[in-house]
C-alpha cells in the first residue's frame, strides 16, 4: 500500500488543497454579499481537498500501480540531467549571457545527453544560437542578455 502511486498522488494534492483552504481563510473570506480576496481560494481549496480525498479513498480500496513501475525500463537519468542543465542555464543566463550559455547547453545536450555525430553538434549549436540571437535582437527587437559578451556585441 505504501508504494501505491495513486495514494501518493492523492496525498500530494490533499496537502496543497489543505494549504489553500488555510491561505484563503488568512486572506479573508468576506461576506456572501461582498466576497473577500480569500473567498475563491477557500472554496477551491475545499474542492481540491474533497477530490484528493476521493482519489486517496479509491487508491486505498482499489490499489494502484507501484511507484517504481512508473519509471521501470525508462531512461529517467536523462530527465534528471536535462532538468538540472535547464536550472544551471537559468542561473547563468543573465550573468554569462545568452550566446555562451546556449552554445554550452546545446553542445552538452548533443554530445552527452542524446549524442549526435560529434562534428555535427557544433555546427547545429553555432548556427542555431547565432541565428536565434540575430532574429530576436535584430529583426524582432527583443533584447537577450549579452552577459560577458556585452563588450563584443555592443
Amino acid at each position, binding site marked *: 500500500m505504501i508504494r501505491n502511486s495513486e495514494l501518493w498522488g492523492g496525498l500530494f*494534492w490533499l496537502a496543497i488543497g489543505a494549504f489553500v483552504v488555510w491561505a484563503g481563510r488568512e486572506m479573508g473570506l468576506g461576506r456572501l454579499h*461582498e466576497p473577500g480576496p480569500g473567498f475563491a481560494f477557500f472554496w477551491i481549496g475545499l474542492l*481540491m481537498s474533497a477530490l484528493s480525498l476521493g482519489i486517496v479513498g*479509491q487508491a486505498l480500496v482499489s490499489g494502484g500501480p507501484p511507484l517504481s513501475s512508473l519509471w521501470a525500463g525508462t531512461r529517467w537519468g536523462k*530527465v534528471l540531467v536535462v*532538468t538540472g542543465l535547464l536550472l544551471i542555464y537559468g542561473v547563468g*543566463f543573465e550573468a554569462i549571457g545568452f550566446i555562451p550559455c546556449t552554445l554550452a547547453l*546545446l553542445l552538452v545536450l548533443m554530445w552527452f545527453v*542524446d549524442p549526435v555525430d560529434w562534428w555535427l553538434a557544433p555546427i547545429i549549436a553555432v548556427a542555431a544560437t547565432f541565428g536565434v540571437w540575430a532574429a530576436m535582437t535584430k529583426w524582432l527587437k527583443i533584447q537577450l542578455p549579452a552577459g560577458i559578451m556585452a563588450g563584443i556585441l555592443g
Partner: protein
Amino acid sequence: MDILAGLGQGFAVALQPINLLYCFIGVFIGTLVGVLPGIGPVSAMSLLLPVTLSGTPESGIIMMAGIYYGSMYGGSTTSILVNIPGEAASVVTCLDGHAMAKQGRAGPALGIAALGSFAAGTFAIVALMLVAPTLARVAIAFGPPEYFSLMVLGLTILSFLSQGSMAKALLMAAFGILLGLIGMDQITAQARLTFDRLELLDGIGLVPVVMGLFGVAEILSNLERELKREVIQARIGGLWPSLADWAAAKWAVLRGTVLGFFLGILPGGGAVIASFASYALEKKISRTPERFGKGAIEGVAGPEAANNAAAGGAFIPLMTLGIPPNVVMALLLGAFIIHGLQPGPLLMTQKPDLFWGIVASMYIGNAMLLVLNMPLIGMWVQVLKLPYRVLFPLILMFCVVGVFASGNAVFDVFVMVMFGVLGYLMRKFGYEPAPLVLAFVLGPMLENNLRKSLILSHGDFTIFIERPISATCLVLAAVALAAPLLPALARRRARVAMDQT
C-alpha cells in the same frame, strides 16, 4: 449585406502584404509543428506569443490563428507516413492512414486528408461568418451569472472528456483556477499567494506555464523512452484520389465537417474529440466496418475533415463570448489581451476590421495550406527524417528564448522548468494538463463574475438558477458531473478515454 460588407473590409485587411506574410508564416509554422512529433500547436503558439508584440494586433492574431489550423493539416502527414501523430487531433488518422501507406496508397491518403481538410476548413469559415454576428447579438444580454455558469460548463465538459479519471481532471481544473488567481486581487489589490515575490504580483505568466506543461514536459517524457520513427520509404506517388476514392470519401468529409464544426463550438470540445467522434460515426454507419483500421479511406477523410471544421468552430465562442473553448483558443485570448483587446460581443462593432480581417485571412490561409500540403509533401517528408536527438535541444532552446522574451525575466524560465517537471510528473501519475491550462486562463474571469454575481444578488446564490441561460449551463454541467455515476454514460466515457490512449 452586412456580412458581405464586413467580409470586403476583412479582405482589405487580410490582403495587405504584411498580413499576407504573417498568414503565410503562421500556416507554414503550423504545418511544420503539425508534421513534427513532440511539438504541437500549443507549444508553438506560446513560443510565438511574444513575437506578436512586434507587429499590429491583426498581424499577430492572423499568424497565431494560422498556426492552429495549419497544424491540423500538418498532423495528418506524420500520422499517415510514420504512424506517429504530429498532434493529438491526428491520432485517429494513424489507424487507416498508415494502413493505406503500407499498402502503397500514401498519396491518396495524403491527398484526401488535405482536400477534406480544405473543404471542412472552408465550411467552418463560412459558418463562423454567418453564426458569429447573430451569436454576438445574443451574447450582449449575458451578465456575470451567465458568464460564470458558461465557464463552469466549459471546464466540466473538458474534465468529462479528458482521458482517465474525472476526479483527477476536475482536480487539475481546480488547481488551474488557483494558479490563475495568484497575484494582486482585482478588487482589493491585496497580494494573494505571492510569497513576497515581486514577480508574482502580476500573476504567473501564461507562456511559462504552457511552455512548461506542454513543451518541456513533452521533451522530458520523450527523452526517457526511445522514439522509433519509421518513415514510409516507398515513393508516395500521385496525391490526387481516384474517382472510387472520392465516391467512398465524399459523405465522410461532409459528415465529419458538420459534426466537427458543432463539437468545436462546444465549450470544452475541440479538434481531438471531433476526430474521434467522426471516426466512430463512420465506422458505425459503414456497411463494411471490418475495413476500418485496415486502410479505409473514410477513416482518413472523416476525422481529418472533422478536426479542421472543429478548429474553425472553436473561434465562435472566443470571438462572440470572449470565452475560449479549449487550450489553443485560451492562448489566442492571451494574444488579444497582450494587444489590449477583449474578444467578445463588442469586438465586431468596435474593431470590425480586426474581426473580419481574421475571418478573411482564414480563407487565404486555407488556400495557402492546400498549396503547402499538396505539392510540397516531399519537403515535409524530409523534415520528418530529422532525428529527435537533433530536434529536442533546438525545441528546448526555443522554449527558453520564447519564455524569456514574453516577460523579459529569468524568473519565468525557472517557472517554466518547474511546470515542465510538474507536467512530466502529471503525465506519469495520470493527470491531464489541458483542464489545468484552460482553467488557468478562465480563473480570473470566473472569480470576477462569481463575485460580481454575488454582489448583484446581495449574496443570493439563486441568481445562478433564476436566469435561464445560466440555469441551463449549470444543469448541463451537473449532468456531466453525475455521468460517471450512471453506468451507461460511464461506459461510454471510458470507451472515449480508451480510444484516445
